[in-house]
C-alpha cells in the first residue's frame, strides 16, 4: 500500500469524493466546474503548545538548552539560544515528521556514499539525538566528576563543543561531525524560525538582526533606500515583541 502523498486535510476530503463519485475514481479528488474553495478552509502550521516535553527527557532538554546557550550565547545583544526556547523548538520538531524523517526517502539499501550524494543516514533525527545525547552524557559523567553537560562551566562546555565540531571529541558512541551539523542547524532554526514553533521567544532572533517578521508589505520603504526600517517585528500569530530596538 503506497503512503498517502500528503497526509493532510486534503486526504480527508477525498473520503467525500468516494461517496460523491460512484462512477469516478474511488479515492483522490475530482475538481470540475468551480474552484473548490470553501470559506475558512485553511491549512495552518502546527503551533507549539507551551509546557512539558514531548520527546526529550528533562536531562536531554537541559543539555540541549545548555548547548544552545553556547552556540548562541547571551550577551549585550540579547538572550542566548537556550533562553530563547531552542530546546522547546527542537523537542516539538523531534516529536513531529522532522524527527521521524517521515517525508524523506527512507528505503534501503543504505550505503555510505560520497559527500556529494548527501544524507544517507538510516537513523532519523529523533534516534540520532537520543543516542548522541546519551553518549555525551556518559562522557561528561566519566570525565567531569559525575556532572552532566548542563552542569559544566561555560569554558568546559565550549571546549567540548569545539572538539565535537572539529571531529576530535573521542566520545564513545558519538559521530562528531554529523551530530554537530544537525545540532547547529536545528539551534539556528529554533533561534530564527517563527515563534509559533516554540523557539525565537519574544522574537529574540529577529530583533538581533532587525528582521521585521511577517509584515508582508514594504512598499512604503521603496522611496527611502538605505534608511532603517523602524516598525517592530510581527510573527505569524500577530503578537508584537514586548521590546524592540531598531538595528542601527
Amino acid at each position: 500500500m503506497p503512503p498517502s502523498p500528503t497526509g493532510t486535510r486534503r486526504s480527508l476530503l477525498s473520503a467525500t469524493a468516494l461517496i460523491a463519485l460512484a462512477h469516478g475514481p474511488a479515492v483522490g479528488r475530482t475538481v470540475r466546474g468551480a474552484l473548490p474553495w470553501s470559506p475558512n478552509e485553511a491549512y495552518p502550521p502546527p503551533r507549539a503548545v507551551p509546557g512539558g516535553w514531548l520527546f526529550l527527557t528533562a536531562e536531554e532538554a537541559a543539555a540541549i538548552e545548555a548547548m544552545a546557550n553556547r552556540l548562541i550565547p547571551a550577551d549585550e545583544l540579547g538572550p542566548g539560544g537556550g533562553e530563547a526556547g531552542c530546546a522547546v523548538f527542537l523537542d516539538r520538531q523531534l516529536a513531529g515528521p522532522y524527527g521521524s524523517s517521515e517525508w524523506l526517502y527512507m528505503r534501503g539499501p543504505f550505503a555510505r556514499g560520497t559527500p556529494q550524494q548527501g544524507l544517507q543516514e538510516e537513523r532519523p533525527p529523533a534516534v540520532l539525538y537520543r543516542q548522541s545525547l546519551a553518549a555525551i552524557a556518559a562522557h561528561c559523567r566519566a570525565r567531569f566528576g559525575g556532572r552532566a553537560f548542563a552542569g559544566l562551566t561555560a569554558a568546559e562546555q565550549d571546549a567540548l563543543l569545539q572538539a565535537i565540531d572539529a571531529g576530535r571529541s573521542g566520545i564513545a558512541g558519538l559521530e562528531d561531525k554529523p551530530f554537530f551539523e544537525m545540532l547547529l542547524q536545528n539551534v539556528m532554526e529554533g533561534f530564527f524560525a517563527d515563534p509559533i514553533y516554540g523557539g525565537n521567544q519574544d522574537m529574540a532572533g529577529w530583533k538581533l538582526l532587525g528582521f521585521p517578521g511577517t509584515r508582508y508589505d514594504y512598499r512604503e520603504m521603496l522611496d527611502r533606500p538605505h534608511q532603517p526600517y523602524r516598525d517592530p517585528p510581527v510573527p505569524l500569530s500577530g503578537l508584537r515583541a514586548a521590546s524592540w530596538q531598531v538595528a542601527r
Partner: protein
Amino acid sequence: MSRRLPPTDVVVVGLGWTGSILAYELCRAGLRVTAIERGPWRDTPTDFPTTTAPDELRYSIRHDLFVRPAQETLTFRNNRDQTALPIRRWGSFLPGNGVGGAGVHWNGQTWRWHPWDFTFHSSSVERYGAAFLPHDHMMQDWGVTYEELEESFDRFEYLCGISGKAGNLKGEIQAGGNPFEGPRQREFPTRPMQMTAAPDLFARAARELGWKPFPQPSANLSEAYTNPYGCKLAPCTYCGFCERFGCGNFSKSSPQTCVLPVLVRHPGFEARTECQVTKVNLSADGRRATGVTYVDTAGQAWEQPAALVLLCAYQLFNVRLLLLSGIGKPYDPATGEGVVGRNYAYQVTGGATGFFGEDRLFNPFIGAGSVGMVADEFNADNFDHGPAGFVGGASLACILSNGRPITTRPVPPGTPRWGGAWKRATRENYNRWAAVGLQGSVMPYRGNYLDLDPTYKDAYGLPLLRMTFDFPENERKLSRFAVDRCVEAVQAMGAHTVRRNEISGPYDIVPYQSTHNTGGAIMGSAPKTSVTNKYCQVWDVPNVFLAGACLFPMNAGFNPTGPVGALAYWAADAIRDRYLPNPGPLVPA
C-alpha cells in the same frame, strides 16, 4: 488489477504551468481534457494566505510545498564508476508537487532565451570552428528557432503580465532594456519593478564597468494586471517570501493566478488530484498511446483511456515516465545511441557576496524573487569566447530576494560559525551585504544523462530515475570567468570584503543551486538524436506530446520558465492547427 474509466479526448499528466496552459488551450479548441496530478489541489486563500505563507521553517527548510522524497525521488552519482544513491532529502534542486507545480513557488524570473541559444551548436561551429567545442559534447540545435517561438514567448509574457523593459523592439535597440535580447514585437505588459537599494547600487557600478544593466523581467508584478484570459493579478508588496513559497497577494504569476480560475470553470475540463500516473499505455505495436494508468491514494490502479496524452510533469519525472512506459529508445552512454535520458544538463551558479560599511543599509527583507538588475554582457554569444576558451555564458544579476533569517544572514570569510563572535558578526552584517549572482549555461555531454536505477524503487515498486552528472572543465572555466566578473561588480559597488562562490570539487547534490534541470527528452530534427520533433511530438508515438524543460537540448544562462511557457503555447498551436485536422506525425521521420 486496474479498473477502466470512460475515455476522454486528452489526458494531461501534471497540472503545473504547462499542464494548465495546454489544458485550457485545448479545452478552448473543443476537446475534453482530464488532468491527473499526483499532489494535492492548491489555492491561494486555503494553502498560502498572507496569514500563513511567510513561514520560512515550514516552506523553505522543511519543504512543505515540494514533492516529498517519500513519494518520489531519484538517485544520483557523479559518474558511471560510482554507485548511485537515493536523494533522500532535497538539496541542489526542489521539484514541485501539487496543482500549480513549481509555478507556485518559483521566483518569477522570466526570460526569452537568446536567438543564439536555439542554434547554439551550428552558431558555435560557424564562429569558432568545431575544434573549439568541448570534449565529448552532445551539442545539437533545437530544431526550432527564436523567430518561430517569438509569438509564443509573447503569449506567455502576456499570460503572466511580466514586468519589464524591452531592449529590442522589432530590431530597434531600446534604452533601459537588454540590448542583447532577440527582437520582440511589443513592450512588456507591465512596467518594470521599482528597484531596492542593492540592485540600484549594482546598476550604477555596472555602468561604471561599461555594462548595460536592465531590470530583471519579473513575474512579481509592478502593477495590477488583467491577462487575456480575464484573470487578475495585484501589485507585489516586496514581502520577501517568493521562492519556495506560495504568494498570498495574488502578485506572482502562477497557474493559480493566471489560468486555473478560467480553466476549472470550462465545461470540458476535469482535474484529478492525488493520483499518480505510473505509465503511459501503448497499443500492441507500440506506435500509439491508448491512455494512462494511475494509482489513487487507496492504491487502486485506474486506466484512463485517451486519444491524446500530454506529459506535463517536471523535467525529471517526464523522463522517468517515458522510461517506465517504454516510449523511445533509452540512451546508452557507452554507445552514444538511444534518445531518452540524453542531454541532461544543469546550471552553473555562484557569484560574489560583498560586505559593506556603515553607510550602507540594504534592508534585505524588502525584496521579491525577481526584483533586481541584470547585466547580459557575458551570456550566450554576447562576447568573444575565443580568448575565454569556453562555450556558453552567464547572466549576472543583483537580486536581493529576501532576508529570511534561518538561511539568509551571510558573514565575512573567517567568521566562526557559532559563539559570541558569530553573533556579533551576524548582527553587524545582516543589513550590510549584497551579492551579485550568476546563472551559467551547461552544455550537453556524453557522460551526463538520466536512466532508471537498477536498485532503488518508489512506493509503488517502480524503479527510481537515476542521474549521472558532473560539471565538465568547460563549465568550470565558465564558473571562474563569470565569478571574476561578479567580484569586479561587487568591488565597484564599494564592498570592503568580498567572498567568492564558485564551483569547486564534484557537483554536490546537497547545497541548493537551482531547480533548472533540463534535457533528457529533447526536441530536435532527427529521431535518432531526439525524442520529439520540433512540435514537441514524440517521434515514435505521435499521439504523445511533451512539455517542459525536458525538451531543452542544452541549458542556458537564464531561467527556463520563459521557454517552458513558450513551448507549451507552441505545442498547443501545433496540436490544434496541425495535429487535430490530420492526426499523425507532424514531421516525417
